[in-house]
């Protein structure tokens, strides 16, 4: 049976790091599942390059989105590297 996606509001008037916390805390399994996806989809050789991007996030991504990812990592108690990897996975796997 089809279902309807849960609906949320993201308030762009908030600081970027504060925007997604109320969303991601509703998905407690997300961090574990994300690990599973990352491990299987992203080529192993790509991981160090993504870690490079993660460690210098502000140099590679617009600050607003980098801060949103930091806020998500904090709210989920996940590593920033994993969140960055999840957010880049679509581009990395498009080959």
């Amino acid at each position: 049976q089809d279902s309807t996606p849960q609906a949320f509001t993201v308030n762009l008037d908030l600081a970027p790091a504060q925007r997604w916390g109320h969303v991601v805390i509703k998905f407690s399994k997300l961090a574990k599942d994300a690990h599973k996806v990352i491990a299987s989809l992203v080529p192993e050789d790509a991981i160090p390059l993504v870690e490079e991007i993660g460690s210098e996030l502000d140099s590679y991504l617009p600050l607003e989105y980098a801060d949103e990812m930091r806020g998500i990592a904090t709210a989920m108690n996940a590593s920033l590297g994993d969140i960055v990897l999840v957010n880049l996975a679509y581009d990395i796997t498009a080959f």
Partner: protein
Amino acid sequence: CTSIVCQDSKGQIWHARNLDYSYGDILRSITIKVDFQKGGQTVYTGVTFAGYVGLLTGQRPQAFTVTVDERDQGQWWMNLLIAILDQTAKPLSLLVRDVLATSPTYADAVEVLSSTDTEADAYFIVGGAKSGEGVVITKSRIGADDLWYMNEAAPGWFVVETNYDHWVLPPTDDNRRDPAVNAMKAMGQGNISVTSLYNVISTHPVLNNKTVYSIVMSAAQPTALASWIRTP
């Protein structure tokens, strides 16, 4: 993925899509619809995944709708190399979110999506709020390879994009294009609605085991947006 932009007999533009990806079970469980608001007003809406800040599907009310279909070209390291060396290049989903946030019109969105460097190749499918506004942008990492406008695509009132360049035949083992085109023709321009477009994108193999979610939207009628998490 499959994306369709079409124009009904009254000139209203509609946009339908299936998002197909691996690990559907996981992605279905974290698929969400988000209204991005400023001052209590929705600036744009997207269907995305919890924890994913970019958008592969979105609508800016009274302006345009946009979806991304994967265009598998080159090697993974090319995408990362562009990311590291070309700091003007953007991840696809962040570019889409930028465009939804800042482009006031269909024409502006098409221009920005066509001309911005991206970390990967892709197809951007854009529908407008005015009659005639529909295009498939075949995007290379740097620049656009092709812009295919709806009125250039026979029969002239819709355009279908899956994951292959429109000027080549899709592979026989992944031909979702022809079933989608046939379903659109069977529906007819005079019968376009949320329900009929849902039926088109529910046609096998347009709907398939990898389909995570479906959406039907219209920038000119933003409240018509409907989305479904699929269980093929």
